[in-house]
Each structure stands twice: as structure tokens, then as C-alpha cells.
């Protein structure tokens, strides 16, 4: 399940960060980005642990502590719906429904084509757009079912025809 990542690639990432324990988070993030499935496989976590001289459980603690990491395969695009109070009261539930319907999956799941994962997140400071949603670094707000469909189609398109 470790995607196309190769051991040499992972070793290269570790080396590029000077094999430093202090660089653990940066190393893991780069591995996650390179994984194609937006997660850090156990195999690579162990390699990082061995290379940095850390117990695997310490690496796992970091991976499960920070929200940005996943230890299970996720879609290429993570759709994060804010579940903090301001978005919650602005009918976050309806937004969730729109995405679930459009993608045909439930919150926490990944589309079969491996493109999208739906998940909740804490406030990312877009309360003025509430209910807000974040895909990668981009933030969207005040969405309608039609806009949701457009956004999804856009991401699909981008990944179908390479730029």
C-alpha cells in the first residue's frame, strides 16, 4: 500500500534534511507529500525511526498528534470542513451533505479513485466565510451545491489533464 514511493526516495528525503531528529516533522511531511496517497506508511515510518535512531512509537506519536499527518492512505486532495463553533452554527451540516452527495462518500472516507478525502478540521481562521472549507491551501466559503460541483470538477479536471 505504499504507493509508488521507493526506499531510495525516502532515504533521500531523510538525507536531505541532514538525518536530524529535529527535522522529524519536516521529513515526515515530505514523505507524506511524496506518497501519492497523502499518508505515511508504517514501512516508511520505521525507516525514518531507524535512520534517526528513534523508537517507532515516537514517530507514531508525532504522526498521530499533528492533524496534518495521516497514518492511513488518503485522497490526493484533503477536503477539510471546519467544525468549530462559528462554522457549526452557520449550518456546517448542510455543507457536509453537499460534499458527501457530490463525492458519494461519507466524512472520513476517500473516493475510490483516490482523489478526495473528506474530513473535519478545527478552525482555520476563515470564520468570515463560514461555513468554510479548505482544500490544500485554498479556502472556500459561502458555498452552494452548484459551486461545490464546480470546485470538485475543477480538481478532477486538473488532475486528469496534466498542466
Amino acid at each position, binding site marked *: 500500500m505504499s504507493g509508488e514511493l521507493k526506499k531510495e526516495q525516502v532515504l533521500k528525503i531523510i538525507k536531505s534534511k541532514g538525518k536530524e531528529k529535529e527535522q522529524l516533522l519536516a521529513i515526515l511531511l515530505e514523505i507524506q507529500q511524496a506518497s501519492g496517497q497523502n499518508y505515511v506508511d508504517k514501512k516508511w515510518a520505521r525507516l525514518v525511526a531507524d535512520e534517526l535512531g528513534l523508537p517507532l512509537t515516537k514517530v507514531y*506519536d508525532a504522526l*498521530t498528534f499533528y492533524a496534518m499527518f495521516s497514518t492511513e492512505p488518503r485522497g490526493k486532495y484533503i477536503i477539510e470542513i471546519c467544525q468549530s463553533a462559528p462554522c457549526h452554527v452557520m449550518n456546517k451540516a448542510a455543507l457536509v451533505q453537499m460534499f458527501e452527495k457530490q463525492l458519494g462518500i461519507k466524512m472520513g472516507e476517500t473516493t475510490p479513485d483516490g482523489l478526495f478525502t473528506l474530513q473535519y478540521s478545527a478552525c482555520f481562521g476563515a470564520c468570515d466565510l463560514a461555513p468554510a472549507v479548505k482544500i490544500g491551501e485554498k479556502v472556500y466559503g459561502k458555498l452552494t451545491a452548484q459551486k461545490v460541483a464546480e470546485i470538485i470538477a475543477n480538481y478532477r479536471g486538473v488532475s486528469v489533464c496534466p498542466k
Partner: protein
Amino acid sequence: MQKTGKAAKKVTVSIDGRPVTVPEGTTILEAARQAGVKIPTLCHHTDLKPRATCRLCVVEVKGQRRFQTACNTPVADGSEILTNSKAIREARKTILELLLADHPQDCLKCVRNQNCELQKLANEYQIREVAFERSEKDLPLENTNPSIVRDMNKCVKCGRCVEVCQEVQQVAAINTANRSVDFGVSTAYGESLADSPCVYCGQCIAVCPVGALTEKDDTARVWEALDNPELHVVVQTAPAVRVALGEEFGWAPGTISTGKMVAALRRLGFAKVFDTNFTADLTIIEEGNELLQRIKEGGVLPMITSCSPGWINYIEKFYPELLPHVSTCKSPQQMFGALAKTYYPEKAGIPAEKIFVVSIMPCTAKKYECTRPEMQSSGYQDVDVVLTTRELARMIKQAGIDVEALSEEEYDAPLGISTGAAVIFGASGGVMEAALRTVYEVVTGQELKDVDFKEVRGLTGIKEATVDLAGTKVKIAVANGLANAKVLLEKIKAGQCAYHFIEIMCCPGGCIGGGGQPLGTTVAIKEKRLEATYDIDRGLKLRKSHENPAVKTLYEEFLEKPLGHKSHELLHTVYSKRKY
């Protein structure tokens, strides 16, 4: 924690209005204790570094807006501390209610019933109702390995097990993981302990305040065997059990309960009550000769002891390249098993297939050890079931045996005959001392007058000494606890290790501090168990393994000679690298 310099400065503080003077650096918890106030704690353990996660020990310190956690806050000179104000009582109650809100409410069915720190606190604080919404988890029970059962639904997230596994043992099989409501203790990627680096030492069980971590209970299998009229059920007891079992019956730590334990085992229905000490003496003969052979023939040195199964698991998983250093001797428990199904049946005229061997051990790793495929040299599984000290106590209580009222009884011959050298196997340094007593006499041909090798005794993590054997200086080292073992192993790897012989015990303090011993073990209690151990040794006429008459007979009748053909077949083994 309150490690203070030689001439520590004293500070005076007021605890609930009463002045108390303590060395600078003393925690509020400790200062209060000296003032006669027991502040409630949950995550804190006297032998471990405080993590201060539960906040149950909060107190008010005048002038500070926020409550302070007593377990990790040192007292400041002149401060006024309130441990029992209304606000504090309420805060503690709320913390307990929150804990109980997501704790299973099945205390009646829990092994820790009446021996649970959370239950005790809930009772002290008279929690009768929980105002918070119940938020119980439904996590799977892990009971797929022979030693340790984990029920994370009961975990109160104190972190004691993590501290032990990460710092004291440095195995790091478990750690904190996840955040907010999902925060808890986990292996990496939620793998089973069997797939993790876990060595089954059970030190995590020994510190867990609740029923989240327990030994795999095998008492039912022993009852079944005892009830089976076809079976001849024999039992062996490890050296460290006799100095700890009494705690389970409320006796003072350090009470020697050998005679009563033997009597109780007979009442339980064991056909013969034998002693692992017998094969501890045998181990010394085999291992002592192995050491001399290695020294004489230029074998791999330092040689390292092999009695502790947690230690064997550790080296197989972490330092397989150093395995040639480990003595090929099986542990005394496994030597016993092999003989109980070969030598003993011959002698007693009972077919081996009818013999069922039970061990009473201070250890959870022994449960795993007896299931190893290498441990079947009799043609059967040599040891059928291992019970911990705690499980034996459970059986005695279930049987309604009033140990207090029992008269002391003796072990059965011949596998119950032993010397003082064997009983000290239960203490860190004991195997080394026992070996030296024998090796000295074998090498020098002279009688060893003073058999006490005090340098290798005690709870210190690493002990070193040089012994003069008729002109040959033998350098030895003793380590207990795996973090200490690691220090010596790294030295060996770096080639900076001039030792000839090293003793390693997995558990801090040796078997007396084993993961299967009565709960509530602390350094102070271990000291008592140690004292009792050396008291037994001192009181015995025979204190050297090679003087054991039953071992001599065993060689004459059966084994022929140390390191001989039969010995190799039954008493020695090989180790292998293990992946995790």
C-alpha cells in the same frame, strides 16, 4: 525526584496551617506527606519521573492564581499551601467524575477489583453519581500473546506504563498517541504487542493503577489439570516468589513465606511441590563450566547470563549480533521442565505424558518462554503452564486456604533440594554471586571462606567488580533493568568491554521486582524482598551450588557430566534474531 545536594538547604512551608521544614527541592506532595497529609494522586508513581497528567493532586498555593500539581511542584520557602479547601475538594471531585464518565463501570468483574487506584479514589471521594455524559469507548481487548492482556477501555492515561517502557526499559513498545478525545497509549500503528518490540517484561502491568494492563490469567488451565485424575501435576516455585507472596495476604513486605507456600501448594492438590532453586543450582554448574571453558578455549567473552526471559527477548530483538555472548544455558525454569519430563518420570516410574508441569514465577515473560518451540526437549512442552505470584495467590484464595493457619512444610525430594546460592537468583547480582562461589572453588581447589560477594548486591543499575581467582583477575558486571543492560551492550559493541562475565536481569532489581509480583511494588518494597532473600541464604547450611547433593546425584544417575551430551540435549539451547 527530590534529589538534593549533600548539604541541601532547608525550606519551611505551611501545609494547611502547619509548618513543615524540608530540604529545598522537595515536592509539595512529599512535604505534605511529612506533615501528615496524604494528597491524592493517580498518575504519580514514587519510582517514576512525574508526568503530571491527571491533575488530581492539585493544591492551592497562596499568591498563585492557578492550582498547582503537588506531585511535580517543588515547595518554595515560606509558601502557604492548602490541600483541602472547598475549591480543591470540588476540583478533585470533578476530575474523578470526568475520569469515571469514560471508564467502564464493571469493577465487580475486573481483576483489579479492590486493588484499583481509581476505584479507591472514587470511594474516598464518595462519587455516587457522575454528572457528565457517559462517553465509554469500545476498544478491542488485546489478549493474543501468552503474557500480557491490554484493555485500553480501562486506561486512565496516566502514562506510567509509557514511562516504564520508554525510559526504564527503553523498549519503547508503547507510547502516547493521538490527540484530544482520542489521546491514549498505543503501540506503533496499533500493532499487537506480539508484532511490536515488546519483551513481555510486565513492568507496565506493575505500574498500571487500574485494570487496563494485566497478566494473561492461566489459573483455569491449572485448575483443570488438577481436576484431571489422569494427570500427575507437579509444581516448581521460583526463588523470588517466596519473599513476595505474603504481600498478597497482607503480610509485611519481606516476609519469608516458603514453608506456608509449600503447604498451600499441597492443599491445592499438586502431587509434588518442587523448587526451581534445584535447577538454579544446576544452572550454576552448567554455566560455571561454560564460562571456564570459554576462558580456557578462547570462546566468546564476555559471557552473559541467560536466566531472564525478558532479557533474552530483548537481545534477540535489539542486539541479535551479540547473541554469541549469551550463555547457551536454558533458564532454571526450563531446565526444570526438561528434567521433570525425562529424569523425574524415570525415577518416579510415571510416564512422561502423564506429567503436567506448572511453574510459579514472579514473571510474565516466563509465560511466553514456556511456549517457545525450543522448549520441548523432553518431546513434550517441557513446562505446561506458568502462573505469576499474583495468580498463585488468586488460586489460594479461591480454594479458601487460610495460609495464616497453615504449618510450614518442606519441598519434595529430589527436585526440591537446593542451596543458598540458588535462592539469591531472585536478586540482581545473585546469579553472579552464586556462580562466583562455585567457580572460585572449582578453579582454585580451595574452600571459599567468605561466600558473600557484597559488591554485586543491591538495586544499583550497573554493578562492577574484579575477582581474584588464584591469580586470574576476573572482571564482572551486573545490570538490572533493560536501559542499564543497553549501556553494557553498547560497550561490548564498541569493543570497550574488558569483562569476562556479565549478569543481566530484565526487571529493575532482578526477579524480586518482576512483572508478575504483587502489585504496588516500590523501591522500598524491593529492598525488603532483597533483605529476605539474603536472610534465607544466610540461614542455610549449604550455600554453594556444587554442594547440592541432589544435583550431584542427578549427574551420577542421569546427566553424567556438566556440558555433557545429555546436558546439551536437555539443558542448553540456541537463540535467534527475532523480527518485530
